């Protein structure tokens, strides 16, 4: 009898291994959660600085320093979207007025691909669901072979269909509106934008890449910086409802400082 149980156990291990090997990669989970400290007890003092390297917190450079560090970090990025020569001036003009023109400032969705990788993936037969914890947004991505739908309006996150290529989920996204930017420096796009996202799992690390084509505005396809996300194993990282975005600042913007 014990020998019989042993054989059953072996058979079930082999069977489950075969199922995993034959099916698509398992992307389920919360990815890239920030490790948060315990909440400070009310009544206790706390002092925390948003890190701004080299900026004296008691000096008069704090606000300007925040803008400057962000602008310089982006300027130093090795790969930026390359626009058609006749549109380079328009990108600069939008960038100079970014403080009032960036659609994301007005609580609109950042859209694909600027919103980045999902914070949680829910994978079921025939579809994958991307959940975005910071914005309470979601995307439903069919993986059953159906084509893009023809009956939807252009949208911020576009129309997605997915397929598995080995360890990689490939998501093809079309039908965007033009009310998002690719980044903070005036990187506009047209409704003809086409995005291909690739999500590859190796062990407990998910690698996310996205490539943008836009035949109307980009000179060449642009691939965003690669993002790598760790699988969360802590119950504390379960997604919570994010605070809504409520725009209060626009009436008080008096200068065009670039952020």
């Amino acid at each position, binding site marked *: 009898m014990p020998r019989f149980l042993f054989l059953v156990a072996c058979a079930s291990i082999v069977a489950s291994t075969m199922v995993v090997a034959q099916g698509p990669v398992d992307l389920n989970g919360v*990815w*890239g*959660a*920030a490790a*948060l*400290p*315990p*909440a*400070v007890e*009310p*009544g*206790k*003092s*706390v*002092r*925390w*600085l*948003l*890190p*701004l*390297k080299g*900026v*004296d*917190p*008691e*000096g008069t*450079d*704090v*606000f*300007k*320093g925040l*803008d400057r560090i962000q602008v310089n970090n982006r300027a130093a990025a090795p790969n930026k979207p390359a626009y058609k020569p006749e549109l380079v001036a328009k990108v600069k003009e939008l960038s100079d007025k970014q*403080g009032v023109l*960036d659609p*994301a*400032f007005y*609580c609109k969705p*950042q859209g694909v691909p*600027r*919103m*980045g*990788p999902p*914070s949680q993936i829910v994978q079921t037969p025939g579809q994958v669901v991307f959940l975005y914890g*910071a914005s309470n947004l979601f995307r439903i991505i069919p993986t059953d072979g159906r084509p893009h739908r023809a009956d939807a309006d252009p949208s911020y996150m576009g129309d997605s269909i997915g397929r598995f290529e080995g360890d990689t989920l490939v998501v093809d996204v079309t039908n965007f509106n033009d009310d998002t930017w690719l980044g903070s420096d005036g990187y506009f796009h047209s409704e003809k934008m086409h995005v291909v996202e690739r999500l590859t799992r190796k062990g407990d690390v998910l690698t996310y890449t996205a490539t943008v084509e836009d035949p109307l505005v980009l000179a060449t396809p642009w691939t965003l910086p690669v*993002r790598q*996300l*760790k699988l969360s194993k802590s119950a504390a990282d379960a997604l919570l409802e994010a*605070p*809504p*975005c409520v725009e*209060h*600042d*626009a009436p*008080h*913007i*008096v*200068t*065009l*400082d670039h*952020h």
Partner: protein
Amino acid sequence: MKRFAVALAIAGVVSGSSVLAHHSFAAEFDINKPITLQGTVTKVEWVNPHVYVYLDVKDASGKVTSWALSSLSPGAARRAGVTRANFGQGQTVTISGYHAKDASNFAFMRKMTFADGHSVELWLGDDEAKK
């Protein structure tokens, strides 16, 4: 403190959560106009992209003026361990910060100090760079 800040920076890099775009603080607030307000917290609005605190300030004649104060984002506050419960709804507090450039009753809140002396400060910078 430095090690803590470095750890947070790394967490930010590996984090997958998308950060909401913020307005430039420099476009709204004047770092050269520090301001101190004492009053009662009437509302703590825990929203993106910035937490808002509303304060009723009473002058010597008894006239009440309502102020709005912007803090960092709810996500940044939480990375500091600060939740809505730390922001003193209904309590009498002293807030130090920086006045809005448009001179309205609006300011950036740097620090909230409570009657018992404890304080909550969410600010920006690098203590290593102090002059």
